[in-house]
């Protein structure tokens, strides 16, 4: 007879569910573009990134079975049987164009990587191990996203306009994924040393990565730069009334 010792940690279970679902959804959306990218080289890169994202999801889903919270509904711990989908609302639909791919790559995937960076020295071993491997692969994804942001922005005209539209559609929901600063889920992970940052600190780290690239191609985002603290801050409040804390996604 085998017995499974499960950990009781609703916050960690919730975040792992969200990470896995987002990685899975990103991979599925990327997959559509493996033969639809603007160039053969980009299509091959899209295929490689698809494999990476689905691979990240497949390393995360099995962790759910280690938690007491999985006992309530065992079908929710397998991607094939899972009926809950805690990915961003933006990923509910197929990408409307290549610019949606690039925006997801540059904004959402970078936000998730910001979380994994904060888990590099996690007190939860399985997450720490996966975070380091995922970060290695994400270096290439970042180069791809940044390269395409610059390329599409410099193309000008309708191409640039489509890119700005895609970034606008994803911007607020990506920033909200970290949760409000008093988010009990992220705060518990922070207090338990599972991650080394609060939601606001994660958002600062994310903005420090993406805003300079956007600024370099003249795309203005709603942030202000505080010269004293050398940090970017939101110029306007995030739309928390649209955010569902359970799914970590917009409801409308």
């Amino acid at each position, binding site marked *: 007879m085998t017995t499974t010792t499960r950990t009781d940690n609703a916050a960690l279970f919730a975040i792992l569910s969200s990470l896995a679902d987002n990685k899975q959804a990103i991979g599925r959306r990327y997959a559509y573009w493996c033969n639809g990218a*603007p160039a053969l080289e980009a299509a091959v890169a899209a295929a490689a990134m698809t494999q990476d994202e689905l691979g990240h999801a497949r390393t995360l889903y099995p962790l759910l079975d280690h938690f007491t919270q999985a006992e309530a509904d065992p079908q929710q711990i397998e991607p094939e049987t899972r009926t809950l989908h805690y990915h961003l609302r933006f990923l509910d639909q197929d990408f409307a164009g290549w610019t949606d791919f690039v925006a997801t790559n540059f904004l959402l995937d970078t936000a998730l990587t910001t979380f994994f960076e904060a888990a590099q020295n996690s007190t939860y071993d399985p997450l720490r191990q996966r975070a380091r491997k995922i970060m290695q692969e994400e270096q290439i994804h970042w180069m791809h996203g940044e*390269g395409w942001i610059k390329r599409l922005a410099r193309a*000008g005209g309708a191409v640039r306009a489509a890119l700005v539209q895609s970034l606008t559609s994803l911007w607020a929901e990506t920033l909200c994924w970290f949760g409000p600063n008093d988010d009990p889920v992220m705060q518990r992970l922070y207090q338990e040393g599972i991650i080394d940052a609060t939601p606001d600190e994660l958002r600062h780290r994310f903005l420090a990565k993406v805003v300079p690239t956007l600024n370099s191609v003249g795309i203005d985002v709603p942030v202000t730069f505080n010269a004293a603290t050398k940090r970017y801050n939101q110029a306007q409040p995030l739309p928390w009334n649209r955010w569902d804390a359970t799914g970590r996604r917009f409801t409308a």
Partner: protein
Amino acid sequence: MNTITTSTENAGQQRPRREQLNETRVWQVFARRKYEEPLHEIGNVVADDEELAKVYARSIYDEFSWIEMVLVPRASIVTVIAS
């Protein structure tokens, strides 16, 4: 929502949308699998952006665990004896 704006519009508005994304810069890809072997040409990629060229080379020529891979812009190659 209309929160992200664009402060500069580049030239290129007159060109067809697909043509704006055509890449023109060719990079020769060299790599080696062992320290004792020299770099040899394994193919090429087309990308105007150097960082994207790196991404493409890594994803297209991923059949081996290379210990070194470099890119050389085709335009910088000087022909000594033409074929």
